[in-house]
């Protein structure tokens, strides 16, 4: 883990209350230079509130927070000059063209006309939007708008990039193109903070992540560490006829942990095939079976539960 001294973001007991709602209830976060750090959690876990505080657009209610070594409450504009923000909902300037969106945004950072023109050309190519540069923003597809939002956040060559649910609502092709771009940025050394509730996204992108639930951090580590700590290497999914009671008691003997879902059983074990063979031996005959690797999703559901958050 990177030393605190070169930490780009350091939070201790960070809290956010809005009226009676305790959105963030005391979290500690350290993000080192060059790291891609993820905030995972269900809706309402406090991810976006934490991000807004780090982005210096939401005053904290308690605790300490340092971004780039400065306090957002005191040096908000100085910090914002050196970070890039991709909001959850695109807020591109609908009254400007694609290119103007980048150029005008650069001007807000105090860049010269010549500098923003050159930067816009470079970023349009990076986002594969060069042939749409004279178009208005509205007719662009969701993926294109998202890419434009991301390159807009890069106009000031930020040291820290904050991405709030960057791929929500995109089709698989658009997501993969976006992940590719974020990966290239990582290789260029841009530190990234990503909130997401897509587990595959977190596994793809994040070096390290925290799982948030109810405004608190409930787990922290690399994706592999978290899987090792909160799940098993493999998961066996078994389906039984709906009207028969599944042989839960027998199966529990065979595995570390078992979870009963309405339509299937989940068996957590180091070796899925061995569990399946053992089950066959004692005469258990499921309708179907599937052995798969454990994912961050299993960790996530274990930590934050299966209740529906609206």
């Amino acid at each position, binding site marked *: 883990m990177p030393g605190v001294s070169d930490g780009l973001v350091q939070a201790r007991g960070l809290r956010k*209350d*809005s009226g009676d709602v305790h959105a963030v209830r005391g979290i500690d976060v350290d993000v080192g230079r060059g790291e891609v750090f993820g905030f995972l959690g269900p809706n309402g876990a406090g991810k976006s509130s934490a991000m*807004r505080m780090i*982005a*210096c*657009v*939401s*005053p*904290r*209610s*308690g*605790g*300490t927070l340092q971004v780039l070594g400065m*306090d957002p*409450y*005191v*040096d*908000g*504009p*100085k910090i*914002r*000059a050196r970070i890039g*923000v991709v*909001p959850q*909902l695109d*807020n*591109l*300037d*609908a*009254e*400007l063209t694609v290119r*103007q969106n980048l150029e*005008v*945004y650069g*001007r*807000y*950072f*105090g860049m010269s006309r010549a500098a923003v023109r050159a930067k816009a050309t470079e970023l349009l190519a990076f986002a594969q939007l060069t042939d749409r540069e004279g178009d208005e923003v509205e007719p662009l597809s969701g993926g294109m708008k998202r890419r434009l939002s991301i390159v807009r*956040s890069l106009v*000031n060559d930020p040291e820290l990039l904050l991405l709030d649910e960057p791929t929500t609502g995109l089709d698989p092709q658009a997501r993969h193109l976006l992940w590719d771009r974020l990966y290239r940025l990582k290789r260029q050394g841009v530190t990234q903070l990503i909130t997401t509730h897509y587990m595959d996204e977190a596994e793809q992108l994040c070096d390290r992540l925290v799982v948030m639930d109810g405004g608190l951090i409930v787990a922290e580590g690399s994706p592999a560490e978290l899987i090792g700590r909160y799940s098993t290497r493999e998961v066996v999914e078994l389906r039984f006829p709906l009207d028969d009671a599944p042989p839960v008691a027998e199966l529990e003997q065979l595995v570390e942990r078992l979870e009963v879902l309405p339509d299937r059983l989940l068996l957590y074990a180091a070796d899925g095939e061995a569990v399946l063979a053992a089950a066959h031996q004692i005469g258990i005959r499921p309708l179907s079976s599937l052995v798969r690797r454990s994912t961050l999703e299993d960790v996530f559901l274990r930590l934050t539960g299966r209740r529906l958050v609206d």
Partner: protein
Amino acid sequence: MSAPAVPSAPLLRIFPVGGYAGRSKMIMMRSALVYRRAWLAIVSGFFEPVFYLFAMGQGLGTYVGTLPGPNDAPLSYAAFIAPGLLAASAMNGAVFDSTFNVFFKLRYERLYDAMLATPLGVVDIALGEIGWALVRGGLYALGFLSLMAVFGLLTSPWALLALPAALLVAFAFAAVGMAATSYMRSWQDFDLVTLATLPMFLFATTFYPLSVYSEPVQRIVQCLPLYHAVELMRGLTTGAVDWSMLWHVGYFVVMIAIGVVIAARRLNALLLR
């Protein structure tokens, strides 16, 4: 909500902390870029007072004849209402820009959220938007004053000062308009804007002198901001200038101060939750 402890600022905290990056002109530049493509909206705004001037000044004016001007010298009806229309168009342009346009950007485009992700602060936004309303109002005033000159409705060199006066009036209405917009919740609330501006346009001595009213009504009219704008303009375009006009200027300076402070503070509360 309690703010975390910060080193105490020596200055009085009228404006939000970190709310000003000194780059409001970038926001005006953005508006100029947008309106380069929407020039029709600018042109239509210019014609509104012109139409009134022709309809009432020429049309009605034929029947009205002359009216007593500020120094009791007779004025043609067109020369009487032209400064009133100048003041009213400064008000209408500024109010439109700072209410409808700002509300749209605030609630629908989330444009200000995007700006606040940059070093820009709420004071930059407030001043930038008000500044643009001023530029636009200034262009209208310049156009209308030129037209008045062409038709011989300017009877004094003091009229040159009507342009900065129009800017002052536009600034005041834009500042208060933006402050009011920050309290609006839906488009229905904009009926209140019309409810405030239309009666002022009709009754604040734009079309006839204050003396038509009874004494108590006169006192009420004299409280209205547009009354002060009309008096200021009419004094300047007809050359009836004296020190008492500073009272009108003062009225608008106070409006500007209150409007800008409230607008910046409210934007801070709305956007930096």
